[in-house]
């Protein structure tokens, strides 16, 4: 007994002495990781990839932006958000509406409305003629929806699987709602055929490359935002809420508020990602915002490592990349690969590939 106590004291002081150094190392490692990511995206990828591949990567970068938000809400906040497609879609449709209106010219009517609708622009479309309004809406609409939803759900202490099912049902309902609106937002076809982006011709390869740089820069900024959140006192509190929500309540905090902040930030990120997705891919339709894409967002995060800073980014890009190359090589087999990968990670690396390093470190520490 005393021996054990002594040992505990010994390691205790050892641990107490090392942290400042270890913390510093960790900061440097993160900074290094960030620089590596920035170089890979902004220097390496444009240098080695063809325009077609770079545009594909741009799409994956959009998924990665959603993933960063999911990492915050799910990895750190414990909210299994199975419905990020909703926020992605809100941002995407806001952008798509603006692009359609801009293509139609001042007081013009988007082409599909002439085909399916009354040939009149609905009143609620009008504000999206303004670029400023559109940019604000891309962030504000998903954020406000998430705030309203979060306030209603988290205050009633809905969590765990119930929250996951609720958010997924929302994604399903959202897609169905969009499909039903053929005349005003294109129904199943969605919105497509954009010719310009804030005055820049979208058929010009230079502008397409520029879009990639914009998306990559936004991703890097989002990583920085989340990094600051993780390092802040709020980040510590969020982990506390994830692990012991009731205990936090007895310390005088309202855990609902803590969760709402993370949920709103994640939703805003998904909205921004959706808005960037539209000019890069050239189409947004209900198929990109429903249940299936919402789950696909999550898989990359789970595989990469949901509670780490870079895990969701790398996971989202890697899974999307694997999907593209594997379905090119073995058409129609992708879903099996995806399923198998997901099962393997959940079974052997429940914290994602990012935990491989941590696992090795633990082993070394034991030895």
């Amino acid at each position: 007994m005393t021996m054990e106590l002594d040992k505990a004291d010994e390691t205790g002081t050892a641990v107490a002495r090392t942290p400042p150094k270890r913390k510093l190392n960790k900061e440097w490692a993160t900074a290094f990781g960030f620089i590596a990511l920035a170089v890979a995206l902004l220097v390496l990828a444009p240098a080695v990839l063809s325009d077609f591949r770079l545009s594909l990567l741009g799409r994956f970068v959009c998924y990665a932006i959603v993933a960063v938000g999911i990492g915050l809400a799910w990895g750190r906040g414990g909210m299994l958000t199975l419905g990020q497609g909703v926020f992605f879609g809100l941002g995407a449709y806001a952008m798509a509406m603006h692009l359609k209106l801009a293509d139609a010219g001042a007081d013009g009517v988007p082409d599909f409305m002439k085909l399916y609708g009354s040939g009149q622009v609905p009143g609620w479309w009008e504000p999206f003629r303004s670029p400023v309004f559109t940019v604000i809406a891309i962030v504000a609409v998903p954020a406000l929806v998430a705030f309203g939803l979060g306030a209603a759900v988290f205050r009633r202490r809905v969590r765990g699987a119930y929250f996951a099912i609720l958010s997924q049902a929302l994604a399903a309902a959202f897609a169905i709602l969009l499909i039903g609106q053929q005349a005003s937002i294109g129904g199943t076809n969605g919105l497509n055929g954009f010719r310009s982006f804030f005055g820049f011709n979208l058929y010009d390869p230079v502008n397409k490359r520029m879009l990639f740089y914009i998306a990559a820069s936004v991703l890097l900024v989002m990583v920085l935002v989340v990094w600051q959140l993780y390092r802040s006192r709020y980040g510590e509190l969020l982990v506390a809420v994830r692990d012991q929500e009731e205990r936090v309540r007895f310390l005088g905090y309202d855990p609902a508020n803590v969760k709402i902040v993370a949920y709103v930030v994640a939703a805003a990120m998904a909205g921004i990602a959706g808005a960037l997705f539209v000019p890069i891919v050239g189409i947004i339709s209900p198929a990109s915002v429903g249940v299936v894409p919402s789950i696909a967002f999550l898989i990359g995060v789970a595989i990469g490592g949901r509670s780490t800073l870079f895990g969701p980014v790398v996971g989202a890009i890697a899974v999307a990349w694997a999907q593209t190359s594997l379905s090119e090589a073995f058409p129609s087999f992708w879903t099996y690969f995806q399923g198998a990968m997901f099962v393997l990670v959940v079974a052997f690396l429940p914290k994602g590939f990012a935990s491989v390093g941590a696992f090795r470190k633990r082993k070394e520490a034991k030895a």
Partner: protein
Amino acid sequence: MNGDYLELTDVGVSFDGFVAVDGVSMTVLQGDLRFLIGPNGAGKTTLVDAITGLVPATGSATFGATELLGKKVHKIARLGIGRTFQTASVFEELSVLQNLDIAAGAGRGPLTMLRRRTSVPEEVEQVLEVIGLEDLRDRQAGVLAHGQKQWLEIGMLIVQNARVLLLDEPVAGMSAHEREETGLLLRRIGAERTVVVVEHDMDFMRSFATSVTVLHAGKVLSEGTVAQVQADPRVQEVYLGRAAEGVA
């Protein structure tokens, strides 16, 4: 400061017709180390749940001049009522320091929250010393020994600025040495606070209680000093009766 005491008047809690707490009235003064004892199912923990807002209750519970019943859990906590749970519930993935920092920060504004913790708040530094975890400050709370976790929880109550400490079986599962340490810790911090300890451990109670309330079937059976309560024939009957019948 001197006017702050915990006063319960006719507190009642019932679940679907089952009366768990039945008209409990008691007053706990500052500096008192009150033990709440009684057989299983006597309503001890339920009473603590009622005071902290976890279960709805009738009657009145005031601290200072403020009514506690009917308020939300986090609002009651902010009024200076702190509690621990039977199973130590610390934030296992966070360090000792982070645990205490969170406990100290319920009043922080959004800007402070979004910044990093650059220094250790003074009250956290003091408490680390009081609970004897100075050298383990950067240790993950999840790997602490059982006793250390309980001390960390008590430390969290102190930095939370709790004026009333409601401790639910703080020494359960502790070694004799740890019990002794815990008792001394409670004495140290109890002088300026109001402390209520729910406990099964009679030896621990005898060593550290300044006053005792015995609950039985949701009612106050007896109240007084340890000697008075032990001499009370009704208390003897409840405990001896149970012993004679086995599990009643």
